[in-house]
């Protein structure tokens, strides 16, 4: 029942879908999968799976150690992926790209190294109510250790960033402004360059949680003037278990290491040790080698499609979804109403129906969404809802899948409303 509409995508989605083996399946006979849980994790194209498979079948070895062919080949692939990721976010140098496990670890790295040595009583970390728990809890933990304060810019009813409230909370006591680039619930895209300028004007550093933006928007860490930018591979077609912390070189040079161990040292003596150069100073122990190589393949794939095109596709599909969801009685989508102000996310509440029941019945129709608080409990509290049902889109989602979602929601209403 796909209808004529004005939303145009620049992508050949049918051709793209051929690259993603998971998408071509029925969850039960006659019920094809509709995967709309991309904000949680994305599916992986063959090029990523093949790159990792190739590493394990052809040249598996540890990196930075062995003087043998396989180890050299593994080291080259691991470091070459870093250079491609650096180019993808336009870092000035690959030495500013620290491999971590994920966005959460990247933020924790900053908290436990820069935060613990630079924050103290009287200092303020300024964040927002829109954050994922991974950009709230590490700062609460550091605040408890060093005695600093954490402030939050409140969420606005319409889901847009509250610039006035932000300015009211920003003063010279603020040492770090740490915000999400794109809310994982509302989809709100924050004005990161303006925030960077405002933070720097009071002498604060600026950290961006890019977990939701790096997969969906063109990202240029220099143009946005971020001091730190954190993101995860698995939400952008890459494997789980690998993420990145981008940091400005002089900041990373001055920060103490995060974890101690092999690979992060130049010289070890029993009394003391000397740290390795960037980026390896922050990469203790054997890293996720296959995953880094898979991440490199993922950014190559995204670059070939073009992040402008990915974003344009998502604006189109989100615009279509917002229009169609507005037709379903009793359904309200949280966050900005304008699809050009948000990422490809529609977090819904339905009158008299719990989000768990929405997700369960949609699952029966082959539609995968997420129900719950999406690791953003404070944000849900500010909206006076305990949970929401979130559909999130990516480059391989179609307008027909949005239609399936809407049909599924009608089935939910039929089943559960009295």
């Amino acid at each position, binding site marked *: 029942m796909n209808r004529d509409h004005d939303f145009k995508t620049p992508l050949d989605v049918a051709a793209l879908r051929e690259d993603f083996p998971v998408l071509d399946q029925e969850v039960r006979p006659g019920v094809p999968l509709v995967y709309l849980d991309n904000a949680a994790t994305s599916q992986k194209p063959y090029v990523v799976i093949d790159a990792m498979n190739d590493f394990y079948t052809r040249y598996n070895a540890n990196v930075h150690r062995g003087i043998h062919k396989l180890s050299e080949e593994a080291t080259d692939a691991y470091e070459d992926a870093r250079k491609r990721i650096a180019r993808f976010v336009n870092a000035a140098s690959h030495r500013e790209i620290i491999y971590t496990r994920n966005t959460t670890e990247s933020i924790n790295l900053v908290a436990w190294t820069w935060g613990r040595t630079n924050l103290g009583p009287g200092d303020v970390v300024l964040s927002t109510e829109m954050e994922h728990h991974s950009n709230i809890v590490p700062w609460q933990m550091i605040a408890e250790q060093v005695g600093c304060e954490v402030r939050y810019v409140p969420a606005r009813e319409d889901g847009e960033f509250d610039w006035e409230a932000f300015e009211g909370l920003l003063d010279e006591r603020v040492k770090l402004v740490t915000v999400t680039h794109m809310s994982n619930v509302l989809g709100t895209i924050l004005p990161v360059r303006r925030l960077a300028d405002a933070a720097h004007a009071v002498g604060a550093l600026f950290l961006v949680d890019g977990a939701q933006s790096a997969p969906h928007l063109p990202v240029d860490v220099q143009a946005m003037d971020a001091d730190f930018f954190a993101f995860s591979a698995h939400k952008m077609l890459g494997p789980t278990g690998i993420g990145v912390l981008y940091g400005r070189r002089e900041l990373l040079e001055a920060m103490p290491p995060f974890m101690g161990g092999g690979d992060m040292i130049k010289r070890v003596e029993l009394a003391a040790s000397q740290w390795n150069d960037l980026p390896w100073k922050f990469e203790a122990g054997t890293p996720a080698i296959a995953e880094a190589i898979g991440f490199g393949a993922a950014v190559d794939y995204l670059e070939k499609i073009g992040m402008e095109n990915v974003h344009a596709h998502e604006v189109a599909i989100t615009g279509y979804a917002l229009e169609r969801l507005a037709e379903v009685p009793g359904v309200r989508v949280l966050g900005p109403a304008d699809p050009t102000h948000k990422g490809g996310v529609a977090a819904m509440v339905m009158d008299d129906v*719990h*989000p*768990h029941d929405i997700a*369960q*019945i949609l699952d*029966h129709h082959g539609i995968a969404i997420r129900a*719950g608080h999406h690791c953003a409990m404070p944000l849900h509290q500010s909206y006076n*809802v*305990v*949970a929401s049902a979130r559909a999130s889109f990516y480059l391989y989602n179609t307008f027909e899948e949005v239609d399936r979602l809407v049909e599924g929601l009608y089935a939910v209403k039929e089943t559960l409303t009295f």
Partner: protein
Amino acid sequence: MDDMYREMILDHYRNPRKKGLLSPADIDYEEDNPVCGDHIHLTVQFDENDVVTDVGWDGEGCAISQASASLLYESLIGMSKEEIRHLDKEYILDMLGIELGPVRLKCALLSLKVLKAGAY
């Protein structure tokens, strides 16, 4: 339709039995599941032999949590405190007659958790 939402469960969700709190009560206990916001408040009256004479409850949440509360609490009348002690997960699942994944199991078992925490 999905087995999980078969008629008996939907009936208990739409028309919950024994809803409304008792006062006074021998058990008066409430608990939330903060992850999904399910909430159950239970009150129970016993006679002098520790046998349940009446129950009343209030709550909100998903169909599974509310239907399981309705089914479980309605079944308590005439049950002794000792019998309540032996109620377990299987008792709830047998009443619901469905299979549940780990996330939904928490929804279904909140009513039992509230009962046990209130009773002991």
